[in-house]
C-alpha cells in the first residue's frame, strides 16, 4: 500500500469528519467573551440550542458513523492505513507512563500523522472510578499528554494533536474490580 494512498484516505476521512461535525454541532448564542474558540467547526451554523435537551448532539459526529458514510460515497477508498491498529492504550493505577506494549501501535499513528500533516488527532484520556472526579480529570489529561509526547517525539507536529480528558465520567467497563478499572484507565486515539 503506497504512502500516496494513505494520504488520500486521510484527507477524505478528515474532511468528512469536519463536515459531519458541522452538521451535528449545536451551538449556543450566549457564548461569553472570555471563552476561546477552540475549533472553527464548533462555531457552525447549528440551530440555536438554548433548550437544554438538544445538548446530546455531540455523540453523532463520532468517527464510526463518518466511516460508514465515507465508504458509501467514495468507493475508490479501499484500505484504511490504520485498520487493525490499536486505538486504545492502557495505563497503570495512578500512573501516566506509556507502556512498552503500546509503542508499536503508537509508532504507526505517529507515522500516519507525519505523512498526513493535515490530519488532526484527539487524545482522550480516562481514569478509573477510584478517587475524586476532578482529580481524575487531571489524571486523564496527564495520560493523554504522555501519549501526545510520545507522538511528538516521533515527529508529529504539536498542532496536529489535541488532548482532552473525560476523567472517570465515561467508563467502558462496569463493576468495582481490578479488571474493570484496568480497562477504564486508558487513552483513546480519535481522528477528527
Amino acid at each position: 500500500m503506497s504512502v500516496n494512498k494513505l494520504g488520500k484516505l486521510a484527507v477524505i476521512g478528515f474532511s468528512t469528519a469536519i463536515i459531519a461535525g458541522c452538521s451535528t454541532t449545536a451551538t449556543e448564542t450566549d457564548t461569553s467573551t472570555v471563552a476561546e474558540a477552540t475549533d472553527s467547526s464548533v462555531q457552525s451554523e447549528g440551530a440555536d440550542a438554548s433548550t437544554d435537551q438538544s445538548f446530546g448532539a455531540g455523540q453523532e459526529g463520532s468517527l464510526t458513523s463518518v466511516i460508514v458514510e465515507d465508504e458509501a460515497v467514495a468507493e475508490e477508498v479501499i484500505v484504511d492505513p490504520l485498520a487493525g491498529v490499536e486505538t486504545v492504550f492502557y495505563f497503570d493505577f495512578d500512573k501516566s507512563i506509556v507502556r512498552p506494549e503500546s509503542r508499536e501501535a503508537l509508532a504507526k499513528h505517529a507515522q500516519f500523522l507525519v505523512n498526513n500533516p493535515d490530519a488532526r488527532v484527539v487524545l482522550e484520556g480516562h481514569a478509573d472510578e477510584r478517587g475524586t472526579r476532578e482529580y481524575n480529570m487531571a489524571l486523564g489529561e496527564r495520560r493523554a499528554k504522555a501519549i501526545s509526547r510520545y507522538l511528538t517525539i516521533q515527529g508529529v507536529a504539536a498542532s496536529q494533536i489535541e488532548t482532552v480528558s473525560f476523567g472517570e465520567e465515561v467508563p467502558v467497563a462496569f463493576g468495582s474490580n481490578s479488571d474493570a478499572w484496568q480497562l477504564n484507565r486508558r487513552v483513546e486515539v480519535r481522528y477528527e
Partner: protein
Amino acid sequence: MMFKKWFGVLIASMLLVSTAKAQLVIEITSGADQLLPIAIVPFGYNGVDALPEDVAQIVENDLSRSGLFKPVPRANMLSMPSTEADVFYRDWRLLKSDYVVVGSVRKLENNQYRIGFELLNVLTEKAVQKHSSIDVSASNFRDAAHYISDKVYELLTGTKGAFSTRVLYVTAEGDRKAPLFKLQVADADGFRPQVIVESREPILSPSWSMDGRNIAYVMFRNRRPNIFIQELATGKRQQIAQFRGLNGAPAWSPDGKKLALVLSKDNNPEIYTLDIATQKLERMTNHYAIDTEPSWEPDGKGIVFTSDRGGNPQIYRLDVNTKRVERVTFEGELNTRARMTPDGRYLVTVQKNDGNYHVALQDMKTGRVQTLTETYLDESPSIAPNGSMVIYATTYKGKGILAVVSVDGLVKYRLPSAEGDVREPSWSPYFK
C-alpha cells in the same frame, strides 16, 4: 370518638405518603447516642378538602434525620391537641417526651392556608416557642414544614437548622454505556427534585453561589469540557470557560464576585480566578504538578486545593493575596477535594487509607484527623451551611448513591435513588 379521630389521621397520612413523590428515599443507618424525645402531634385542620401535605410528618422526618431527636410514634400518643390550651402535660410526661410540637392548619380565602405551631416544654409546662403562624399556598406546604423544623431545631440545639436548604446533584440514567446525565436540584430531604440540565455528555462539579441564586457546573459539549454559570430562577445561562484542555472545578468566592476554576490552557492544571463582572482571569498557582479542586475559605482570604506536588495528592492552602502556598494535610496516603466548614474550624477531605477512600475531618486548630465514613468509594463531600452534616457520594450495592454523615461521625443516613447512579452532591447555602 378518639379512635375515630386517630383513624382519620392515619388514613390521611398514609395517603400523603403514597402521593408525595421523592426521588431520594431516606434510610437512617445510625444515630447519636443521646436522642432528645419530642412529640410532633398531627396538626389540626378545620377544612374538609384533603391537605396537600402532612406538615407534622415532614417535621418529624426532618428532626429524626438530624439524628438528634427521637420522635414519639403517633400510635403511642394519648391525645392529639392542636393548641397549647388543649395540652395535658401529664400525657406527654407518661410518654417520656421532653417537648411537644402542636399546630393547626386553617384554610383561608384564595387557596391560602395559615399554618400555626407552638413548641412546648413538658417539664416546665411552658412554651419554648409561643404560637406563631405562616401563610402559604398549597405548593409551599413543604417549605412551611421545613421552616417549623428549622425553628424547633434552632430553639432546642442552639444551631441554626438547615432543613430549608437544597441539594444539587448529578444523575446518570438509562444504558450505562450511553447514559443520560441530569443536573438536578431537590430539597435537602430529597423531595421536589427538578431537572436543571440534561445531556448525553457528562456533567460534573456543580456548585452554588453564596446567595443560592446561581450555580456553576462543568458540562461536556462536542466531547470537550465547558464551564457554565446559570441563574436558577430564570434558567439564564452563560458559558464562561471553554479553553483548550481542562475546564473544571468551578467554585464561587464568598463575596460572589469570582469563580475559582481549573484550566490547563498553559500546559498543566493550574488554579485560576475569574472575575465574573470584568471577565478578568488571574492565574493563582504555578507548578508542573496537578493543581485542582479549589475551594474558598469562608472569609475568602484563602483557597484550599489538591496538588500532587509533594509526590501524592494532598491538600494545600493558597493565600489569595500573596499567592503563597502551604501544605495543610499530612495524614493518610492521599487527601483530595477539600471543603471547609462555615466556621473555618474543620477541613473535610476524601482520604485514602489502605486502599479505601473515605471522608475525613481535620481539625484546623489541633490538626487531629478523624475518619467519618466507612462506606465504599466515598467522594464529593459537601457541607451543610450550618456545619452540622456532610453529604457525599458513595457506592452501595453497585450503584452510586448519596449519603450524609454528621461532622461528629455519629449520625449517618443514605439517600438511595430510585433510578440510575446519583453523584456529585452540593449542599446549598442558606437562601436569603
